[in-house]
């Protein structure tokens, strides 16, 4: 039995990463942009785990662990910023936020 080629996981990871990039560039809602970034981070995690299995090396697993910690911290701070803006401006659209021209 051959199992699953590592390349399958890497391609899936590339697809999800690109979807995340598309989401960040085309959406105008700060929360959805942020969710797309989470999608990108998860794609990266999949790559790390695929490489970890391929190399038989535990470092990739630890790295994924760290990425999750960072993602959780970013979510806490990011959503706090979004809520603070919403309180002040009643909007989460990056277009309504005049200064925010990409």
């Amino acid at each position, binding site marked *: 039995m051959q199992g699953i080629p590592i390349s399958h996981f890497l391609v899936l990871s590339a697809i999800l*990463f690109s979807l*995340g*990039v598309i989401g*960040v560039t085309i959406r105008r809602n*700060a929360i959805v*942009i*942020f969710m797309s*970034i989470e999608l*990108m*981070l998860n*794609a*990266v995690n999949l*790559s*790390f785990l*695929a*490489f970890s299995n*391929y*190399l038989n*090396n535990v*470092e*990739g697993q*630890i*790295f994924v662990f*760290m*990425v999750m910690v*960072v993602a959780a*911290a*970013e979510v806490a*701070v*990011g959503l706090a*910023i*979004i809520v*603070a*803006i919403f309180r*002040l*401006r009643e909007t989460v659209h*990056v277009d309504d*936020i005049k*200064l*925010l*021209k*990409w």
Partner: protein
Amino acid sequence: MPIAIGTTDLISILPIAIVSLFGVYLLLQSVFAPRMNRILIPYLGILGVGLAVVGNFFLIGMEGTAFEGMVRVDRLTVVLNFLFLITAALSLLITISYHEGEHVEFLEFTPLVLFSTAGMMVMGSAESLMTIFLGLETMSIALYVMAGFRRTNRHSLEAALKYFLLGAFATGFLLYGMALTYGMVGSTNLTQIAQYFTQNALDVPLVALMGLALIIIGFGFKVALVPFHMWTPDVYQGSPLPVTAYMAVGAKAAGFAAILRVISLSAFSIAFQWSEILWVLAVLTMTVGNVVALVQDNIKRMLAYSSIAHAGYILVGVVASNDQTVPSVVFYLIVYLFMNLGAFAVATMVAGQNERRVNIQYYRGLGYTQPLLALAMAVFMFSLAGFPPTAGFIGKFYIFSAALQSGYVWLVILGVINSLISVYYYLNVVVAMYMQQPVDEKKIAPVLPGVGVVILVAVLGIVYLGIFPGTMLSVLR
């Protein structure tokens, strides 16, 4: 497997540990001693930074890795630690004066400065992609919050949101690059990555190159290289002035420290393959930064574009990638620290309450109403423009001579042309201060002691490094 942490390990992270513990202490202090005068907290923060500076002296002369190849202690580490700690101390001094003018709560501010400084020091001493990543995120997440610290001001919050979203986006690219590099090399240790690239120097696998390119994109966001600089002007403009000062100096220095760690270790052997990409980035960054800075009338925006241009100059030193790279880049970062923190300190004084006076027109006639402040600002502007007796000139000189040594004649010519362009907008401020009438009669508040110390240190640093650069350079070499 027992946990073996030796004394060497602990000493190698001494400044990082001191700063972080002091941050935690200050948080607890404000909980358990609420009666204590809160104005004292930034001073306690400076005390913590001072202790870390003392701790950093123990690292001098150490050479090697610690924590099983997670951090590296060498001369670069020590110098960078000093750089970050001085930045933190001076920014806190600016904060104290800003605080007196603003009546904004800066209670949580000091611990955040300390934590992000710890993150920067982790980046500067990183020996593994994992520590670089964690240091970067510790620094960045603290900076996202600090950018939004005037949380009743929409510009500040919008700056925080923009910085946060683009920063997190860049983190995605950085991580993907790290994943690809890890997959090809089999390790995140920078020395092993360097070995891998040296062994495969003639035929580097595309995946590994792609990984390095994505890592460069990630760092490019943090140090504001040109295609990735879109956040810089708005974030610099929206953030409170002390935060802008801290961000402009600290985050940039940390980003370049990480680039030096990754590139100067890994990419020497493959420099010929992608130094052309960095070459183009450097030229773009210098040109866009300087040209757009010409039309700015807000001092914060002007300094933001100026900081982009300076990232371009520093990148010239990185492109050179010879034995002059590390000394010239670090020397420039030190000079940049004094010039920029000084300029932002003056801007804080002129801006006054609620940062109302940030337009360059408010600098008109400053030479007559506030002669000393104007003189200091003139020194900073001349140094930023790179006029000969100042440190800015020496810094550029070493960067460009490093590039010449590697044969990048055109790059140096373009860099010099850019320096000439930049003279216009820096001198614009000087002209406003000395040759124009004040726009309003409202007097600028007298210089507060905190900012005064920063300006004094900055002027002395610029003059000293400009006239006697030899000592510092011999330390760096």
